[in-house]
């Protein structure tokens, strides 16, 4: 068993507002292995964003520990190493770009890591190519679309060569096209071995993960493979969370046509299932 990349152990967190404590996260434990693709879903106010900010030491636990690659986030001496390992992309495309030219923005993290200029150029090339933004490298960011800005933000993280990419609702301000652009990039990075932790409320994103964690009122209430999670449609509905359209269709069909697999969650899987069933009948004749 490979050593986990991130270990969250009995994490609790609270904000103090006017001397009253407001509990946000309660006794949360989970591990993320290298190369995993984890989606964290939950409502606004469920604590999912607070949780994501614990993963690279922006916030630190009130009790419990978060351990990244062996470093505890409470030890501020290794904070630079932790943040280099676990990169983070935020919700608003406009609020995380520092420089006035795409290329310089990608360089920002590298300057902080004191990477020598000779190596910098190579890393910038690599990162911009990975997100497909190489041709925009000399553009000012305000001429880019939301999806393009988010890809630049991802490139800024990639250049730092992290092991894990945390997306904190990184697609929620984008249109369908922009969101698909980002998801494509993320899936590719995951295929190449990068661990992904994506905080979202888009169920179609949850469907492409290898694992889904559902958070409600600061507690983990479900944790498992997406196929399993979406079977619990009633509970998700009670939590006012959506189920992917493909999953809803699959269950509706199964109700009238029992051979149909009701646990499917992808559009492609539905197509394959229809093809499979119709071919089976053909050979039956």
């Amino acid at each position, binding site marked *: 068993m490979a050593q986990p990349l991130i270990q969250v152990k009995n994490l609790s967190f609270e904000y103090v507002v006017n001397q009253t404590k407001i509990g946000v996260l309660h006794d949360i434990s989970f591990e993320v292995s290298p190369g995993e693709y984890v989606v964290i879903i939950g409502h606004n106010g469920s604590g999912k964003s607070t949780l994501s*900010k614990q993963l*690279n030491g*922006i916030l630190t636990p009130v009790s419990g520990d978060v351990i990244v690659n062996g470093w505890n986030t409470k030890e501020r001496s290794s904070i*630079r190493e932790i*943040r*280099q390992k676990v*990169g*983070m992309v*935020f*919700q*608003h495309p*406009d*609020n*995380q*770009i*520092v*420089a*006035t*030219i795409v290329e*310089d923005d990608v*360089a*920002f*993290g*590298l*300057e*902080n*890591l*004191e*990477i*020598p*200029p000779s190596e*910098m150029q190579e890393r*910038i090339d690599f990162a911009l190519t990975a997100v497909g933004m190489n041709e925009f490298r*000399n553009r*000012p*960011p*305000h001429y880019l679309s939301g999806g393009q800005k988010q890809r630049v*933000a991802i490139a*800024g*993280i990639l250049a*730092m060569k992290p092991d894990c990419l945390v997306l904190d609702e990184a697609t929620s301000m984008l249109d369908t096209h922009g969101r698909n652009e980002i998801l494509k990039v993320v899936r590719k990075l995951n295929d190449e071995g990068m661990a992904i932790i994506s905080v979202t409320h888009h169920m179609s994103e949850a469907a492409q993960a290898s694992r889904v964690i559902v958070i409600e009122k600061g507690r983990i209430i479900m944790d498992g493979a997406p196929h399993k999670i979406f079977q619990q449609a009633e509970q998700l509905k009670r939590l006012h969370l959506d189920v992917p359209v493909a999953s809803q269709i699959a269950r509706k069909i199964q109700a009238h046509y029992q051979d149909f697999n009701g646990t499917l969650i992808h559009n492609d899987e539905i197509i394959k299932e229809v093809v499979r069933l119709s071919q089976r009948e053909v050979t039956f004749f």
Partner: protein
Amino acid sequence: MKKIAGFEFELTRNITIGQYVPTGSIIHRMDPRIKLASFTLLVISMAVCATYGGNLLALVLSCLLFYVSRIPISYGLSGVKPAIPFILILAILQLLFYSEVASGGKVLLNYGFIHITTDSIRLVVVSALRFVEIIFLSSVLTLSTSTTQITHGIESLLRPLRTVKFPVHEFALIITIALRFVPTFALEMEKMMKAQASRGAEFGTGAWWRIVQRTKDVFPIIIPLFNVAMSRAEDLVLAMESRCYVPGSQRSVSKKYKAYRTDYAALIFCIVFAIVLLAFPFPY
């Protein structure tokens, strides 16, 4: 009838700061440090030069710079256009009230307190020319230099100040971020004005002496804009920290600029030009 035209809200589209026009000309390729120094030199010499001849020469040079940088001169003209009323008002004021200062030369008109001489005419014309020259020059500079290069240039030129503990790098970063957010906030403000106008807000209408009312009218814009700015700043801090930024700590520099022979040639040209403007005894 109140003036409510459509375009009164289009703020961003009139902001030319940071509008980089990449044509790849020789001026674009100049080392930003030398470019900045050269342009500063030219601007200073033009601001001081008070002769017709010198200013005509300077005007020719600034037009020539557009040609060399391959940027359409219409950009420069669109920079001058909004300044025309200002130039005109300045001209009238100078004509009426500067006669004491510029009292030399032949008297052309003497009527009551109006006292126009060849010198005061020259003052007016030269000031107007200076305006145009400097707008042209700074247009060429900003249109041919990315904001990053400008900040890098400033940083390099200010580097000697580090010996007196001036935080040169932080200063440059602040400028970069400020420039980065100019278009963002302009857009934001435009949206806010439109949104509040949709709810019945009116700006800049009503009598000018009702200052309290007119000030109150901008609250619905200023307060949300301030809130948005604060939340953007918070986000930005988080994003910067996530990318390992620690204020005051050592950072490496991504770009190394190298000055070539052409850069030095340009600098020398500018020095000579400045000396000519300041020292050459132009006949007019």
